[in-house]
């Protein structure tokens, strides 16, 4: 098994820096998800690995071998594109056998391998159909089979599910993962859907403006985004802009943490809705409630959880934030009620503004 390394890869289109000094190591057998908003350079990066684009600077290595100048067809890669790029003039079987036929493998070997692949991607029954005659999900499975046909060392997938509807997407995502693990192939998976990235990847690389902002395991990215961008892009978070006072960032009553390095007069604090602790409506029995007082503006039932839209009063002005509670504990809280809000300081991250 071989990994993939990008070393200081840059690529510009005119004045647009699609990739800006990107260095990534994909370990052998690993599935790395490239996650980022539209136009951040994910496709460009993938195309550089495939050799469909030539980097302006930097090197691409596959399994320790420098591939920067190797033409696409000599690279040990298989590729699945966003929209079904099946050959319309070939049947499912012929599409899958194409990489083997252009390599002039013996007929018998081709037939055996294609049967095996048809089985792997569960298309044996559709083998003689043309691309026009199969569904979108089947088309992408066929594309996957074709990408794996010649036993490549690296599998490249560019938003393979984005043209499919939600139900098929989830199923096929898990299937791609299953197949990738069964084959044990190194894979790079481009997506702009964070839940897809989290669900499928061993590690996620968060990209923005042609740079890699963070590479980490999905749970690490989820819990501890390294940059402000990663924090906003991954998961839904509360983002509160606050003044810095005496080197500390705080919502009085709710949390109080040291300001991050390099902070000026303002900072932005991120925390997850599920980490916002809400203590029930302030009671008049004299017991001192802890936390920042806040009013429930809106209560949205989401099934297992309920989301509260809160407006807190901390003296300096109203602060809007969300809280997600298990639905059963939100039952007693009504819209308009006054509650108290607290956040574990260890779960708050602040970045300079």
């Amino acid at each position: 098994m071989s990994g993939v390394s990008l070393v200081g890869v840059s690529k510009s289109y005119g004045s647009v820096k699609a990739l800006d000094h990107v260095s990534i190591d994909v370990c052998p057998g690993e599935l790395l998800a490239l996650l980022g908003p539209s136009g951040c350079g994910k496709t460009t990066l993938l195309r550089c690995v495939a050799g469909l684009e030539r980097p302006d600077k930097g090197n691409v290595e596959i399994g320790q071998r420098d591939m920067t100048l190797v033409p696409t067809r000599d690279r040990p890669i298989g590729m699945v594109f966003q929209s079904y790029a099946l050959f319309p003039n070939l049947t499912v079987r012929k599409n899958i056998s194409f990489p083997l036929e252009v390599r002039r493998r013996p007929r018998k070997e081709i037939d055996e391998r294609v049967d095996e692949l048809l089985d792997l991607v569960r298309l044996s029954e559709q083998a003689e159909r043309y691309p026009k005659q199969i569904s979108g999900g089947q088309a992408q499975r066929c594309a996957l089979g074709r990408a794996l046909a010649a036993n490549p060392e690296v599998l490249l997938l560019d938003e393979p599910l984005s043209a499919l509807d939600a139900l098929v997407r989830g199923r096929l995502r898990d299937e791609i993962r299953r197949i990738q693990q069964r084959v044990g192939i190194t894979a790079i998976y481009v997506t702009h859907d964070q839940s897809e990235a989290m669900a499928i990847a061993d590690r996620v690389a968060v990209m923005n403006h042609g740079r890699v902002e963070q590479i980490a395991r999905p749970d690490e990215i989820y819990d501890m985004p390294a940059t402000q961008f990663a924090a906003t892009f991954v998961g839904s978070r509360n983002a509160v802009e606050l003044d810095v006072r005496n080197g500390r960032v705080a919502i009085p009553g709710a949390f109080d943490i040291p300001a991050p390095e390099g902070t000026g007069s303002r900072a932005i604090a991120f925390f997850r809705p599920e980490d916002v602790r809400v203590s029930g409506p302030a009671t008049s029995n004299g017991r001192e409630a802890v936390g920042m007082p806040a009013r429930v503006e809106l209560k949205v039932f989401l099934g297992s959880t309920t989301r509260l839209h809160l407006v807190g009063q901390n003296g300096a002005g109203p602060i809007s934030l969300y809280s997600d509670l298990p639905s059963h504990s939100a039952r007693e809280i009504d819209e308009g009620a006054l509650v108290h809000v607290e956040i574990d300081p260890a779960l708050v991250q602040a970045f300079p503004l």
Partner: protein
Amino acid sequence: MAVDAATSRPPATELLGARRAGEATLSRVAKSLFFGAALFYLCVPMVAVLIYSFSTRWTANVLPDGYTLEWWQQTLSNPRIQSAFSTSVMLATLTAIIDIAVVVPAAYWSRVRNPHIRPVVELAAAIPFALPYIVIAFGLMQFSGIAAPQYQGTFALLVAGHAAIAFPFVYWAVDGAMAAAGIERLSETAEACGASPFQIVRRIVIPNISPGLVTGGLLSFAASFGEFAMAQIIGRSLDTVPLWSAEMIRSYSDTAGSYNRLAVVTLLTFLLLFALSAVVVYWNRGQTVRLLPGAGAARTGDGR
């Protein structure tokens, strides 16, 4: 009777006319009226020629004085006409083959590998439309006189000339078919599958643009078959159908039946091209042939 215009253009016009009518949102009646009028307009000259080819004498009256098969027999057994026909068919076939062989790789290259040269290729594909053929023919003759005098007046030079003026028909048809098929994407996919450029063109490009190939081939065949100006300047010693027809017209001798034989030849030409068009329509059934540059470009912007 303008032989070359009448023989080479109707098939193409008819294809377009039919499609236009299909697209129109006119009411049924208006549609059939329009279609009927178009059909009438296209058919009357051919019907007149048909009747003339069977008539003994047709001068003063609405209909001919009498009918005969003589002209058809004479024409079909005339060795000179036979040889003109076979020369023209050879010429047009070679022209179409050469143009396809040159244009497919060139269009593929300019579309997929080096989009920078597209403006140059497109300009080259517009020049034969902009310059009168006679000017091009003269230029070619002058040039060959300097560069290769031994080829002057030969069949080979005429083939080269026809290939030069007919290639835009193939280019636009092929280029449109490539746009419609999304060749850039298919080509990249094939490359990622490990295919060489030759394998890509043979196994992926050609099968997916066959409607454009057939259409382009027919158009260039027709253009070459009916071409007169260049044939007259370059291939004076040769006998093509248009050259023979022009001679018949010039040698005004209606009594000898040369106009009737001309009508027969015109009809034969029409039938030949019509049969080829029918093949094209059959081949392309169910597919939209895009002859216009840039058609289908909306499909190329995916994935980014």
